[in-house]
């Protein structure tokens, strides 16, 4: 697998790139621009794609860095959950073949991840949702693997606090549980 194969792979990767772009940008129009620009950049640099690099991880990396550059260009330091465009998140449950409890659970999981701090949220999206290894996620975000693990641990503690059974010795987690929609 190398850069010469990339053009043929892009259409196949598109749904996942689209979902990732939507999730990190929170806006359909931004996501569309983002994917398009990322694909242009990827094709320009296709020769840099190493045979031992997952093309999907590589594309995620370009989508992410393109988005970070865009945020910098807009002088937006951070996208808080309050800025999230809820247009496509209002109906998070898939009604097909899922019981109401499963739907509710899925909705709560998505909601819990979306409420994480941005750095942790992206790591969760890459590792827990997209199934990237710690090392691949580190490559995507261009941070050390230890940083990925740290962010993941913190993210999971936060999510766990929302989903865990109440501690016999109540802590902050007991109050945060109420925030689950």
């Amino acid at each position: 697998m190398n850069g010469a194969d990339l053009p043929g792979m892009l259409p196949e990767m598109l749904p996942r790139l689209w979902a990732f772009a939507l999730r990190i940008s929170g806006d359909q129009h931004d996501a569309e621009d983002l994917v398009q620009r990322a694909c242009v950049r990827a094709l320009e640099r296709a020769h840099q794609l190493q045979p031992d690099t997952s093309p999907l991880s590589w594309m995620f990396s370009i989508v992410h860095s393109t988005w970070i550059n865009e945020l910098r260009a807009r002088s937006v330091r951070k996208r808080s959950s309050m800025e999230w465009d809820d247009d496509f998140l209002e109906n998070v449950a898939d009604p097909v073949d899922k019981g109401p409890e499963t739907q509710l659970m899925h909705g709560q999981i998505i909601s819990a991840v979306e409420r994480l701090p941005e750095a942790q949220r992206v790591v969760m999206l890459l590792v827990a949702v997209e199934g990237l290894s710690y090392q691949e996620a580190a490559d995507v975000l261009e941070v050390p693997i230890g940083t990925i693990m740290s962010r993941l641990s913190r993210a999971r503690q936060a999510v766990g606090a929302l989903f865990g059974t109440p501690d016999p010795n109540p802590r902050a987690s007991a109050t945060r549980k109420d925030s689950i929609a």
Partner: protein
Amino acid sequence: MKTDDLMLMAYVDGELAPDESQEVEMQIRASSEAAELVRLLQASRLDYKAAFATQDLPPVPESLTRKIEAMARAHSAGNLAPGANDPSVPTPSVTSASAPVRSRLRTVPTWLAAACVAGAFVGGLFLRPGTLPLLNPGMPNSGNAAMASTGVSPWVTAAVGYQQLYTRDTVAYADANPAATSKIIDDIHRDDGLALRIPDLSSAGLTFKAVRRLHFNNKPLVQIVYLPEKGPPIALCVTKGAKADQAIASQVVDTMHVVTWRQAELSYALIGKTEGVDLDALGKRISNREVDRLFGDATLEVPALAG
């Protein structure tokens, strides 16, 4: 983040060796804090993938799918045999309700038309000029009309479309590597048979960024990219033109200013947005050889002679 936390996460995920697990279990028994962390991490073992798979995301816009397909096809056109495995050009559904209006207006689609033209040639299809406006719904007075009326060559149309995808970011980190560039130019001279020179346009405030070998309709097409002090990159594109020399002509193709001429069996197109750069004057200077050759003659003398 403490190493302990990472060990606890690995423990919860069953990634530790038995002896390491025992060590962690001792730690859990001894520390309520560790026990609490394990409780949280265990509670976080959820099926995120399944949950997000059910997320009701909007579908990939048709317009985006078409653009990426066309872009991929245009990019690989030089590597494909005519008609080989090339799907037919997607007929744009001009009334596609799912295509966001804002995005469509913001993303000037001339490049898409160009890519589709390229794809049509590669695929053995021909897109008649009359079909072009279909690619540009809602913008009847856009560049397509100009393209049709002024008879812009298909390769120029493709090059303009390609150039429209460029932003300053595209070439922000492109270093002009003299050794690699010399090699590319050597290949252009030898393999592509194009005896071109890389003009030094620094006197016009343009910094050379890259030279790229492209193909259009299975013919070599060289793109030389320069970055002005402001605004998007400018490209000088060159291909073979085995016709009589042609004087400089200037036109606007969609939002791009294009200066074309033909000289010594090479067709040139200088493409860019006129933000502080007089492309007409620049085109004249290039065609009159009033600009220096880049990288110094020493670097390129041999390949130039070979070409």
